[in-house]
Each structure stands twice: as structure tokens, then as C-alpha cells.
């Protein structure tokens, strides 16, 4: 066969809006994917990247329709085929790996049944061999004990295992092209790195083409040969991965790259202000004009075409030759940090938390049901004005610790004291109004934490009335001031949360916390639900508030680069136990705890010249070991029996950098330097 495998020509997809006008979600998109080629589609939420990938399968979500253009797979128009023909191709020659496998696997069917179904529909295998073939596929996606996985239901697998099972299912029909819709979003860093390596290997071995949709430039850098950048339903830049990530010539791509926090750069990322136009909201001109630093009058009146350059790139910008003026990396603010000694704002004294409460039966039988606590032995002091970052994978107990500090989850052992050495009551009901005011919590998802039926004014007025007894004009004026502080105007006061964008909602959530004039703000994954360009703005805001208000933060995130950008000190947690604690520059540099080393090694930078180091497997542990080091089962630098039986001691590094390990600091430094040298060689 000659010509591209997937040939998308000038498609536009839209839906019918309230005013019965057709609003475009995709506008005049051309995309060609050759056999064996791997293409990344990058963009923020709402850019139409998933819609484009699904359109390649001849599938549009309900409500959407094809306005113009054609999609051909192996030379045949996908939108002109019958349902039976499509059923043949989908899952066969052209397979999808979905975003959230937990929700994309049918909950009432066993993994084995779903795999066998895929084989029955698409594989050229006799029926008697279905189950053997299914087990083989599960083995190929590196699932341990495939025969046992066959009999499991989807909810009995971890997120990474579900994703592997979905990949196995996609491979059942021996596809020539794989579409991947954010396949690693929501997975832990180590799991993500492992899944990406698996996908790279499989695609290379089978010569499969891949269309990889993601907002994560790090993942794209690792997997793709070519990258397409989408903005507001248009392709704005296309080129080789190196061209797009190293020397992008579109202002949006440069802004996007600059807004990504990086491990290697302690400065704050630069926010891309504004928001993309809603479908149908782009005027006659360039859709990026409102956020573009290079915009001129001409950009407003006519829409630039996608211009193909001799270098192989394609760009939709009148002024792409000037784009190199825009900075690519953090010229952002230096994180505010305190200098000199400061009194303690929060002290966790051997904090232990157990989710299991002794039940009636346990009490009757006199059983000790508490078992191994979920979180144990947390001993940290946070100085006033300092930001403490808590990092770790899911299940590391970082959010649990925040809940205990906030009083939502009473600890089973240890004490929490605030400034002045006052102990906090374990339950929030028993805390004094003053303590309640001084500690504020900001949640991950503002959609869940803001009451959708209250206006922004009502939301902000609650703490003001409760803690300061403000009424009338004073109340209104204060609410407007607080909104102004999070860079939202007073005209937002009458709006409902549903009328705000994700970033604006999170600003309101931040404003609500700061309305109480707290001493200590607990941030639980506050940027995880946001797009990178918006995330940068929120980080900048938090940093600003810290500088002006002297607030103390405890900042929890699974994203190591985000934590680095904001934190003075970082604590690394595994299975609810501390592994490493110290100033962020020291924690992010070697020597480090073997777990920190694994975590840092798995982080993907948006740079095609870097590769992750996978030194431990990504097995999910459900509960911490009863004794010894919490990381004993996965540790790549395990010494031996001592790690299983003895709790590791704190090894003192420079300044107040400490590592909880049986290896001495010097040993770790030597081993890790050797490892790094081996990598380079």
C-alpha cells in the first residue's frame, strides 16, 4: 500500500449550540500518519485533541458532527463505511487505548472475558486457543501472573494494571495503528514511565503506528517522532519532536513550554495569561491573538494559514520568524523563601494515622485490629513563612497527613502543635474558632469544593462573617479586596462557580482560604486538575501570597517539579513513612534516598534528549510492611535482612538534610555517582 496509513483531510467537526448555530470543535485539520510512525497530539483541555483522535476511527461523541473533510484509514473513507465494516476495523487494524482504563473496562466482566471477546472479534486464532492467547497477551504487557489476572474484575486491579490490560486488549487484533488517548494521565510517575517504555517497545517490535494524544509534553517527548500542537480546535504547529520541543516557532508552543515547571530549574514557570476562546468564539483573526505577545493589528483581521516550511515544520502564525524572541524557560519569579531562623508554625510529633478503626466484633473478641498504621512516625517542624512540600506516589499518605492537620482525620498517635506550642485538638469539632481560622485547606478540585449553588460573593462571605463578624458594606468591600488579591475583579462576585474556568475557580478556592487570614495553608494537589499554563499562574499566585502575607504552606503534590518550584523544604514519603527530609535543592540532588532516586529517575522532562531511569518496578503495595524499612520490597539498593527487620536510622547530610536509610550518606553518594556515570557511558 502506498500513501499514509491515516489520512485526515481538512476536517471540521462541530456541534449545534444554543443559538442553533454550528460551533466548531475542530477547524480544517490535516493530519497524515505513515505506517510505523509515532505522532503526538498536544494541547490543553478543550483544544480538540481527543476529538481528533477519535475522528480517526470514524467516531464522534454524541452531539458532534462532521462538517467537512474526510478521514481515510488505509485509503478508505472511515465516515463512508457501514457499521459492520467499522466494527471490523475498530479494535482490529486500528485500536484505541483509552484515557481512563478504570472506567473503560466493563465493570461486570472479568478481564479474561473482555480479552477473549477482543480475540473472538478480531484475531485469527481458533476458539480453543483463545484463553492461551489471552494469557500470552497479558504476559506481553508485562503483567505478573497473567493467568490470575484473567479471572479478576477490573476494579481488582491497580491503575497501572488496568492500563496494561487495556493495552493487551488493543493488541489482540494485531493493529497496524494504535490511538492513545491520554493513556498515562492519572498514573503515578513510576507507573507512567514503565507504561511508556512498554508502549515504545511494543510499537518498535511490531512496527505499529501510534497517535499519542496528551497534554503531557514529557510523555510525548519520550514516545513520539513528530508532534502536532493544537490550540482552540486548530493545528498551530507541526514538526519533529526535536523541532517542536527544542525550538518551537509558534508563540503558543513557546508559552506552553515556558509554563511547565522543570526539575532542573528552581525558578517558577511563566504563566500564559488568558484563556483559549470557546468553540465558535474565535473571531476572524488568529485564535491565539488574545494571549500572544507578538500579536499585531493584522492578526486580528485575518486568520493565518498553516504554512509548510522547507524545514518540514508547519506553522499557523504570521510572525513565526520572531517567535524565537519569546523565552522558552523560566524567566519566572524566584520562589520566595525565608532567610534566617524563624519560629515554628507547625510541629508534627511522631504523628501516626490509622484508617481502620476497631469494630464492634474486634472489641468483643479483644482483637487488636489497628494493625500497621497507614501513616507512622511523622516528625516534622515547619518554620513560620516556610513552605514544606510533601511528595510521594498515591498511597504514600501525603493527603492523609494534610487531613490530620486539618482535623478531618484524628491521628491514632502523636501530637500536632501550632505556633506557641499549643497542641491542636485531634477532631475539628473540638478546635477553638481561632485555631480553625488559622489553618485553612485548599482542595484539589474546585468543582467539588465550591458549592455550585452559591455565588462567589456568598462563598467568600462565609469565612468573613464567621471569623470577623463583618456585615453590610464592610463585608462586600472586603470580599472585593480578597478577590482582587487573587487577581480576579469585583465583577466576579455575582457569578456562580459554573461560569468560571478551572483556573478561576481554583483562585476563588484560594481566596476563600486566605479570607480567613490563616497562618497555615494546606494545599492538597491544588494544581493537579488544571492545565499547565493555568497551573503556572496558580503557582505564581501562591508564591506571591506567601511573599506578601508571610503564610506558611504545606504543599502536597504527586508532581515533583511543581513541588520543587514552590517549596523551601521537601519531605519524601513512602507508604506513610518519611524517607527523606531536607532543603529542596538538597533533596532534588544526589545523594538521595533510594526511593527519591527512583521517583526522580522516572520523571519525564519535555526534552527528547533525556530518558528516564527505571531502577525499580512499579508494583503497587497495598499496605506498609510491619517492620523494617517501608521501601524494602522495591528498593534497588537493598542491603539484605537488616532492611526487612530494622527500622532504618536517620543519616545526617549537610545542613538539615536527612535520609532514613541503612546506607550511610557517603555510600549512597558513591553508589549514585557510579550509577550516573554508568548511564552516561
Amino acid at each position, binding site marked *: 500500500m502506498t500513501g499514509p496509513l491515516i489520512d485526515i483531510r481538512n476536517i471540521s467537526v462541530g456541534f449545534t449550540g444554543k443559538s442553533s448555530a454550528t460551533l466548531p470543535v475542530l477547524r480544517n485539520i490535516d493530519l497524515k500518519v505513515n505506517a510505523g510512525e509515532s505522532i503526538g497530539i498536544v494541547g490543553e483541555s478543550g483544544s480538540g485533541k481527543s476529538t481528533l483522535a*477519535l475522528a480517526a*476511527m470514524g*467516531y464522534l*461523541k*454524541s452531539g458532534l458532527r462532521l462538517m467537512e473533510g474526510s478521514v481515510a484509514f488505509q485509503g478508505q473513507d472511515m465516515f463512508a463505511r457501514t*457499521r*459492520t465494516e*467499522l*466494527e*471490523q*476495523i*475498530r*479494535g*482490529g487494524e486500528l*485500536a*484505541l487505548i*483509552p484515557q*481512563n482504563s478504570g*472506567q*473503560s*473496562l*466493563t*465493570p*461486570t*466482566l472479568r478481564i479474561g472475558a473482555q480479552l477473549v*471477546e*477482543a480475540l473472538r*472479534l*478480531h484475531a485469527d486464532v481458533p476458539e480453543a486457543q483463545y484463553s492461551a492467547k489471552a494469557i500470552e497477551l497479558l504476559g506481553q504487557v508485562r503483567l505478573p501472573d497473567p493467568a490470575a489476572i484473567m479471572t479478576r*474484575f477490573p*476494579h*481488582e486491579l491497580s491503575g497501572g494494571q488496568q492500563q496494561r490490560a*487495556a493495552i493487551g*486488549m488493543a493488541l489482540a*487484533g494485531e493493529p497496524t495503528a494504535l490511538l492513545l488517548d491520554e493513556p498515562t494521565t492519572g498514573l503515578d510517575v513510576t507507573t507512567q514511565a514503565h507504561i511508556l517504555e512498554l508502549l515504545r517497545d511494543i510499537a518498535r517490535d511490531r512496527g505499529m503506528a501510534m497517535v499519542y494524544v496528551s497534554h503531557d509534553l514529557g510523555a510525548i517527548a519520550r514516545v513520539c517522532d513528530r508532534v502536532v500542537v493544537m490550540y482552540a480546535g486548530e493545528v498551530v504547529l507541526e514538526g519533529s519532536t526535536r523541532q517542536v520541543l527544542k525550538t518551537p516557532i509558534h508563540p503558543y508552543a513557546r508559552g506552553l513550554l515556558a509554563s511547565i515547571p522543570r526539575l532542573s530549574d528552581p525558578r517558577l514557570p511563566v504563566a500564559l495569561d488568558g484563556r483559549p476562546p470557546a468553540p465558535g468564539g474565535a473571531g476572524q483573526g488568529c485564535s491565539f491573538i488574545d494571549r500572544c505577545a507578538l500579536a499585531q493589528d493584522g492578526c486580528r483581521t485575518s486568520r493565518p494559514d498553516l504554512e509548510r516550511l522547507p524545514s518540514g515544520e508547519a506553522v499557523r502564525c504570521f510572525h513565526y520568524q520572531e517567535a524565537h524572541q519569546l523565552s522558552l524557560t523560566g524567566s519566572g519569579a524566584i520562589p520566595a523563601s525565608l532567610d534566617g531562623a524563624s519560629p515554628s508554625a507547625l510541629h508534627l510529633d511522631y504523628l501516626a494515622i490509622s484508617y481502620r478503626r476497631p469494630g464492634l466484633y474486634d472489641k468483643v473478641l479483644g482483637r487488636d485490629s489497628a494493625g500497621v498504621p497507614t501513616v507512622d512516625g511523622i516528625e516534622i517542624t515547619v518554620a513560620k513563612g516556610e513552605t514544606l512540600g510533601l511528595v510521594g506516589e498515591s498511597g504514600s499518605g501525603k493527603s492523609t497527613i494534610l487531613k490530620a492537620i486539618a482535623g478531618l482525620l484524628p491521628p491514632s498517635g502523636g501530637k500536632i502543635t501550632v505556633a506557641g506550642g499549643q497542641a491542636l485538638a485531634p477532631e475539628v469539632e473540638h478546635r477553638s474558632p481561632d485555631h480553625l481560622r488559622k489553618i485553612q485547606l485548599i482542595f484539589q478540585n474546585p468543582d467539588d469544593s465550591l458549592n455550585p449553588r452559591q455565588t462567589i460573593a456568598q462563598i467568600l462571605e462565609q469565612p468573613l462573617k464567621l471569623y470577623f463578624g463583618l456585615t453590610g458594606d464592610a463585608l462586600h468591600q472586603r470580599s472585593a479586596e480578597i478577590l482582587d488579591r487573587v487577581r480576579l475583579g469585583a465583577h466576579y462576585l455575582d457569578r456562580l462557580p459554573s461560569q468560571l474556568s478551572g483556573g478561576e475557580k481554583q483562585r476563588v478556592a484560594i481566596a476563600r482560604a486566605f479570607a480567613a487570614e490563616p497562618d497555615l495553608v494546606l494545599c492538597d494537589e491544588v494544581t493537579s486538575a488544571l492545565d499547565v499554563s493555568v497551573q503556572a499562574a496558580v503557582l505564581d499566585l501562591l508564591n506571591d501570597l506567601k511573599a506578601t502575607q508571610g503564610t506558611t504552606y504545606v504543599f502536597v503534590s504527586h508532581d515533583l517539579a511543581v513541588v520543587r518550584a514552590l517549596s523551601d523544604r521537601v519531605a519524601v514519603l513512602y507508604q506513610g513513612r518519611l524517607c527523606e527530609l531536607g532543603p529542596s535543592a538538597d533533596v532534588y540532588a544526589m545523594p538521595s534516598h533510594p526511593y527519591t532516586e527512583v521517583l526522580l529517575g522516572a520523571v519525564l522532562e519535555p526534552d527528547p534528549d533525556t530518558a528516564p531511569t527505571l531502577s525499580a518496578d512499579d508494583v503497587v503495595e497495598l499496605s506498609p510492611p510491619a517492620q523494617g524499612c517501608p521501601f524494602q520490597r522495591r528498593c534497588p539498593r537493598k542491603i539484605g535482612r537488616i532492611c526487612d527487620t530494622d527500622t532504618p536510622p536517620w543519616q545526617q547530610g549537610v545542613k538539615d538534610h536527612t535520609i532514613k536509610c541503612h546506607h550511610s550518606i557517603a555510600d549512597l553518594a558513591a553508589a549514585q555517582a557510579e550509577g550516573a556515570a554508568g548511564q552516561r557511558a
Partner: protein
Amino acid sequence: MLAMLLRRLFLGLVTVWIVSMIIFAGVEMLPGDSCTAFLEREAKGKLLENCREAQGLNRPAAERYFDWATSAARGDLGISANGEKSIAELVGDRLGNSLLLAACSLALGVPLAIFLGVVTGLWRDRPVDLAVSTLAIFAMTIPEFVSATVLILVFSVWLGWLPGIVLTSASAPASEFFPEIILPVLVLTMVMTAHILRMVRSSVIEVMAGDYIQMATLKGVPYWRIVFWHALPNALLPAINVVALTIAWLLGGVVVIEVVFNYPGLGRMMIDAISDRDLPVVQAIALIVATVYVCVNLSADILTMFANPRLRTLHMRRG
């Protein structure tokens, strides 16, 4: 798993026990007792005292509750206040008749409701959905006695096809209730079908919009296989509980229908017993209906647990 079943069973027994106390207390608080009802105007002085002594009504309430509860637990519901007849025998016939009515209505209504619910869910907002959903709203909102009367008017008065009233005696065997039972079954079916189908419809719509249905489509699974294999097992789970509530309603709450059609079921017996002040019978029926509610809901929960892998493994892990 077993521990969890035993726990639920134990909680069910406790519920029935508490309900029995409430029933007893409620009847106790009513002015008058079965003696005042039995003796009517003669209920005073020596005669009343003798009657109360004969029936043991002058003993303390706690003692009488204990006697009643223990014998009820053994299946002995006492003796009806006026007829000297064993309540177990009286109620037994009526319970059988109510079960017959419920079974017929369920056999007709549940499959019909699920079928219509799936059809309306799959063809959402199409003519078939609009027609069926509109009819269902009518069936739900028109009071039962109105629809019963209309059916009697049409099928028995005008057309003369079916008897409009049940004349068979309460203790007759089940076969003799045909064809008299047909009209009451139709009315009950209408009401319950409407309820169940609306629930099934919304559940089907929700499941069909889910990620795993999109995934199955993009895996190349044929449409009808998606419907039967991927969607329905998930969409029908919530129906189990609605059917259970319907069963409980059919066995204890269809008083109006039984009165309109003169059907000798539990509900009508309850009404009669209340107007006769036959308090032992009232107590017995209330207790039976409560027990049925508990049993049916318990079975529904257990069934849901078995049908839903998520719940099943959750309880297995807990032991």
C-alpha cells in the same frame, strides 16, 4: 462473606423485633380493646372485667407483649377476638391470596417493565420513547381506584369480557380465582410497570453514555452485543431494589385495589379487622407485612451483592 450474611440476617431480626414492639405499643395506646369492641354497649362493670380476665387483658402490658411475641415467633398468632378462630388459619388463606395476586402481577409486570425500560432507554427521545414514557406517567399519576374503575367499566360493564368483582371465597384454591383475578392484576401491573420502567430507562441511558460503552464500540463490538453483554448487566443492577420494594408493596400496600375488586387479600382483611376492632388480627397482619418488607429487602441486597462484582469482592475481602 458468610459473616456479612449473618450480620445482615441478625439486623433483620432486630428490625422485626423493634417493629413488633412498636406495633404492640401502638395498638395498646388505642382507646378500648377487643373486649370493649366485642361487648359493645354492654362493655362495663362486671361483664367487661370477666371478659378481660378470660382473655388475659388485665395482666401488665410487658407480660402480654412477651406472651404475644414468643408465640408469634413460634407461628402462633393467637385467636381472633370475635370468632374464636385461629388467626394463623385466617391470615394464612389471605396471605396465600395476596401472594397469588403479587406473583401474577410480577410475572407480567417485571419482564414488561424491563423490556420497555430498555427500549425507551436505547431509543431515547425517539417516538417510541415519548409514547411509552407519556403512558407511564399517566399510569403512575392516575389514582389506582380510578384506573380500576375505568377498567371495570370497559372490560366488564361495556364489553362483558371479564368479571369486574371477585366473588370467590377467601379459602378457595388458587385456580378458582381465574378469570376474576385478571382485572386487579392488570391495574397493579400498570402502576408497577410504570415505576420500574422509568428507573430502568434512566439507568440504561446513564450506562450507555459511559466510558466502557464507548470503549466497547471502539473495540469493534457489535451494537447488540454491547447492549446485552456490556450494558444491561450494569444497567439492571439498580432494578433489583426497585423490584424488591414493589414486591413488598404488592403484599401489604394494595388495600385500595383489594377493596375495589372485593379481592380477599391481606390488605382488605386488615381494613376489616380495623373496623371490627379485632386488634389481635391487626397486630398479626402488621407484623407479617413488616416481616415481608424486611425479608424482601434483605434478599434484594444479597442478590445485588452477588450480581455486582465490586460489592462481592469488597465483602469477601472483609471476610
